[in-house]
């Protein structure tokens, strides 16, 4: 049995009160509840406050470049499909610099979980607008207000993601459930987490989110398999903000469709030069 202590990592460099603490706690909890041992987990991350998360638990860790946690996650998952692979990003990371990888990983349905700490601002670089900053949000780089934000939920659904959820860092217990579902989902699972940044986002605070979020689980009629309903839910942002599982559709993963993986994990294949001899005859 895996215990919380198995996941105890370094001390964090986050600001006291940061929403990231809730996400970290939820992730550890989810991994423990799923009884996954640290050495089976790979977390890749980008650069930003969110990208530091995997340093604060014990696991295999590839802290990559800004905007690029997804491609190494994909490469590692294909190399070794036995790994539980989680990519961690900030909103700038995921939807700004890394936007293209996000869309294409979703459509190809790689079997990874994408955990995005969405604080609607650039935290580590000290408060510039992010792609999810609310319209008219004022920062040093958007003194006249930010443009219409990206809607990550709608975009994920449109891109073909097979699992799309929204969590709230202020509700750890709920987030644990989403993380468990996302990690066990076969295919690309986006979990966008509303994450208060106490230092740079003085609009979307704990309180602001708390006054708005509600859980889709509390709406018995809501069917996450219904793509149109999910897209409609994705439009909700204002007085009420839905959290929970917004969309799920199981379909074959990219990795399942690779013929080379049928004979097992790539990392376990023997490397030998001799078999190439079979090909030389093609050229004579």
């Amino acid at each position: 049995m895996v215990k919380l202590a198995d996941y105890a990592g370094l001390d964090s460099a986050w600001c006291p009160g940061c929403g990231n603490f809730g996400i970290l706690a939820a992730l550890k909890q989810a991994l423990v509840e799923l009884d996954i041992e640290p050495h089976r987990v790979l977390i890749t991350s980008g650069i930003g406050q969110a990208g530091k998360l995997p340093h604060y638990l014990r696991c295999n860790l590839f802290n990559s470049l800004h905007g690029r946690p997804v491609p190494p996650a994909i490469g590692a998952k294909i190399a070794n499909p036995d790994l539980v692979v989680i990519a961690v990003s900030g909103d700038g990371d995921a939807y700004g610099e890394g936007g293209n990888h996000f869309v294409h990983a979703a459509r190809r349905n790689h079997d990874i979980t994408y955990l995005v700490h969405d604080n609607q601002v650039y935290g580590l670089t000290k408060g510039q607008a992010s792609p999810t900053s609310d319209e008219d949000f004022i920062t040093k780089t958007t003194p006249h207000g930010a443009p219409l934000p990206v809607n990550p939920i709608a975009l994920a659904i449109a891109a073909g993601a097979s699992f799309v959820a929204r969590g709230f860092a202020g509700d750890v217990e709920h987030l644990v459930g989403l993380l468990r579902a996302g990690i066990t989902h076969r295919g690309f699972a986006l979990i966008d987490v509303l994450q208060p940044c106490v230092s740079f986002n003085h609009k979307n605070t704990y309180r602001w989110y708390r006054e708005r979020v509600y859980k889709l689980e509390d709406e018995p009629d809501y069917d996450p398999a219904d793509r149109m309903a999910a897209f409609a839910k994705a439009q909700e942002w204002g007085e009420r903000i839905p959290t929970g599982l917004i969309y799920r559709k199981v379909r074959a993963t990219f990795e399942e469709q690779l013929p080379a993986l049928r004979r097992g994990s790539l990392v376990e294949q023997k490397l030998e030069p001799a078999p190439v001899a079979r090909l030389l005859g093609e050229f004579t």
Partner: protein
Amino acid sequence: MDSHLNIMVAGEAGQGVQSVGFILAKAFARGGYHVFADQDYESRVRGGHNFFRVRVKEARVRAISEPLDILLALNEESLALRRGELATGGVAIFDGEKVGDISDSGRLFSVPLERLAEERAASKLMANTVALGSALGLVGYDFGIAEGLLCEHFGTGETGEANVRVARAGYDYVREHFEGDFDVHLGATNPSRRMLLTGNEAIALGAIAAGCKFVAAYPMTPATSIMEYLAAKAEEFGLVVMQPEDEIAAINMVIGASYAGVRAMTATSGGGFCLMVEGLGLAGMTETPIVVVEAQRPGPAIGLPTRTEQGDLEFILHAAHGEFPRAVLAPGTIEDCFWLTFQAFNLAERYQLPVILLTDHHLASSYATVDEFDLSGLAIDRGLLFEPNEAAGLEYKRHRITDSGISPRAFLGEEGVLVVTDSDEHGEDGHLIEDAETRTRMMQKRMRKLLGLQKEMAPPERDGPEGADTLLIGWGSTQGAILEAADILRGEGTSVSSLHLSELWPFPAEAVSRALGRARRSYVIENNATGQLANLIQRETGRNITGRILKYDGRPFTPARIAQEVRKEGG
């Protein structure tokens, strides 16, 4: 005397220039000849002007050469553009019934290509195969070899048969009607097991031999055929080849796969490589072994997409911000494409760094006959691996500081072992650090790997007499042309030798210095505008180069052109 032949097939895209040229080349290869063939085409799918040149010799042939013995002009434009390249005694074959009035210089021989194709196969489209047959007829080559090849190429069904029929028609037509004098008569010599393949195919084979298991690449001329070849073999050889959304994804996926424990590679050209630069630095910082093929084409920017250049050397050597060790290999021949690709994977894993295989369009897409690869000497060396038993109780540290700079690698998923690495500066445990001391030690650890690596690099290849007055220096795909140019010059009594660098970085400064020391004059020959290798030599050895022979028009050097420039510079 060594019989030799130089044929060009020319026409527009869509006329089958490439397949006629290839079958010709292969026919001579099968018959025991050495062959070198190159392709010249525009960045379009139909129309324009393309050609495929085949040089055939009993002895080894390493480069293109200009005067043509036979020109197969598949359309009027090709005849007009290319007939000037005929050697004295050369013959142009064309379709006189299609091409309007032309002033016959006596070296033009009309074959009713379309009519024969229509008569024998009810298809004008096979005019190109008629031309193929005509060329073989002109030199009196063994038609049986061509027949076999046509069946392999077009299948043994009706298409194959029709092609054989029309080729035969061309062959016979020439044998019956050609009355001029044409010197070259080639019969099959001793059938050989030599392979005929391109640089890209050799790289792909090298990657398979090396146990590459993951390739992510985005199409870009002239690198694309590497991934295409590998994709076709992926299922059989248990490797994954994928085409992601862009080159940024490609290199970062490759890094992820290698980090997880498999050999992984990407291939691109200069433009795509631009997008990989940040990833290259990531591999440097995280000490992840990767192999990147950069097949150069003329830049800047999109440049001339289907042509050749060696304009990216300095870029490759310094690509990415900050400082970290890398290796750069630039094969000079198609054989080398195979061997150096194999070696690239070993070096990458032994030194845990990015290895760049620098080729160019000319090498990537030219064909040459090579002896079948002897695989017996190949050994896969995955470098220093972590032994969990040895270190029982010790926590695994991905970036342990060692004398060699090399830290034992572990693959993911082993119980009790966590592999932690970071693009930020990090400590031995892979977690990010801020202090000056750790930073300094880590930089030194990484840079130290160059010392070991340096010792492994093969010295540049010298050809010709030790004490020659003149030294011709080159790198990459110009090797063949330089060797032949040196032959030409030596034939004229000049004292020349040549030096070829294919293992470019870490730079073999001592060996190059030594070689320069003995020569009175030194010329660096490069397919670029600034003399990048010459710059590098000057920087690394402190020695001056007498002259730079440069060409940057997108076309490869011929030996004759190099010889002429050397003569001009005063030998």
